[in-house]
């Protein structure tokens, strides 16, 4: 099975799981919106530290976090290199005809801090949720029913199809397939994807038939134990408060 969630087993009984998943979604959205509108470096740094603190509290391990973040940093490095040269302002470093400006450097740092803060926050608050729980929470927040259905079904079958993919890949390896940059590789991978699609279509027919057998009428009733408690209201106020303080500081400083 493929591991989708970030949470380790021991994090399940953690402090955050006492709250309603809906609260975590709303809080994440509030924070993300607040952080995106921040412009001052000290405040952005604070937001990043807050996010890291939260990630540490919910038990996200360092190496895992770093691996996930590295995927994003590629684009961030491009920005960090390009922006100082493209934003006009006081010169800071000169390389031949190009000169880097302080303003540009500041902009680049701003963006890198902001993006990292938001991503770490999302991983800590939402990435640790079980996909099914997340689907239910989204459903309770009145997102379109069909979208939720699609989400839940997709989550369910990613694991199954990943196994299927691994089987096909194993068969290729047994025939000494090594990926290279050539026509043979591309054709083989194309056929691999084609086969994966054919098999998933067949599987989806079987699934629909099986579901009709069990009286599927086109609706999937969400049975969820999520109950909004006083604690969640308090949490929402706390999250909103922190977001508001950050925004207020941004305005007044």
């Amino acid at each position, binding site marked *: 099975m493929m591991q989708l969630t970030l949470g380790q087993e021991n994090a399940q009984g953690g402090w955050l799981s006492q709250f309603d998943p809906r609260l975590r979604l709303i809080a994440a959205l509030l924070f993300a919106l607040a952080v995106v509108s921040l412009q001052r470096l000290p405040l952005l740094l604070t937001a990043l530290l807050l996010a890291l603190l939260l990630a540490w509290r919910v038990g996200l391990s360092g190496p895992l976090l770093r691996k*996930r973040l590295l*995927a994003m940093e590629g684009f961030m490095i491009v920005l960090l290199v390009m922006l100082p040269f493209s934003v006009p302002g006081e010169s800071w470093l000169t390389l031949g005809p190009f000169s880097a400006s302080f303003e540009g450097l500041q902009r680049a740092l701003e963006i890198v801090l902001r993006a990292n803060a938001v*991503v770490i926050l*999302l991983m800590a608050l939402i990435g640790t949720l079980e996909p099914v729980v997340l689907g239910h929470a989204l459903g309770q927040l009145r997102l379109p029913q069909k*979208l939720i259905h699609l989400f839940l*079904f997709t989550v369910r079958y990613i694991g199954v199809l*990943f196994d299927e993919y691994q089987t096909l890949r194993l068969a290729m390896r047994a025939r000494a397939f090594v990926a290279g*940059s050539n026509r043979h590789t*591309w054709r083989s991978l194309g056929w691999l994807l*084609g086969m994966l699609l054919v098999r998933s279509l067949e599987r989806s027919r079987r699934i629909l038939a099986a579901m009709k057998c069990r009286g599927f009428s086109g609706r999937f009733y969400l049975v969820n134990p999520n109950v909004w408690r006083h604690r969640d209201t308090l949490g929402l106020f706390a999250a909103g408060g922190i977001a508001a303080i950050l925004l207020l500081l941004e305005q007044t400083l």
Partner: protein
Amino acid sequence: MAIRRLDFDRIPQAAVLSAAFFIASLVSVPVGPSSVHLILNGLMGLILGWAAVPAILVALLMQAVFFGYGGLLVLGVNTLNIALPALLCAGLLGPALRRSSGRASLAWGAASGALGVVLTGTLVSLSLGLSSSDYLPAAKVVLATYAPLMVAEAAVTGFTLAFLLKVAPELITLQE
């Protein structure tokens, strides 16, 4: 709007296919010295039709939440950037592909793979450039990195579609 076109009856099918595309985008394809992950939006458009839009939205949501790519706030823009080319591929190249056979279907398939990537790259650069002119140079670099992706995407999509037309033509003509 695209969601409304999806019947409840077809949800399992769309979901299984979008799970398949999610898996497929994890495959890394070597191009020259580096390797890329495919977007496959051309292929998705051709197979799923309108259902590609919610499928892409769901796939992006899962990537944003579970892998931390992208992000929640740009989800709308990203979905548009990837889904619009998918729909265009389906509309422009779909009919020709379905009529073709043999070598020609390989070429049409490759064209749809390339078109999907080129359009997405352009839209991404445009949305970067429009949000602030300071991002323009970075947007150009992003566009350049799409070139190897285009090669791989065109090759793999071409072979996939040629294969599907031979083995399971009903998958591509699902829409009618």
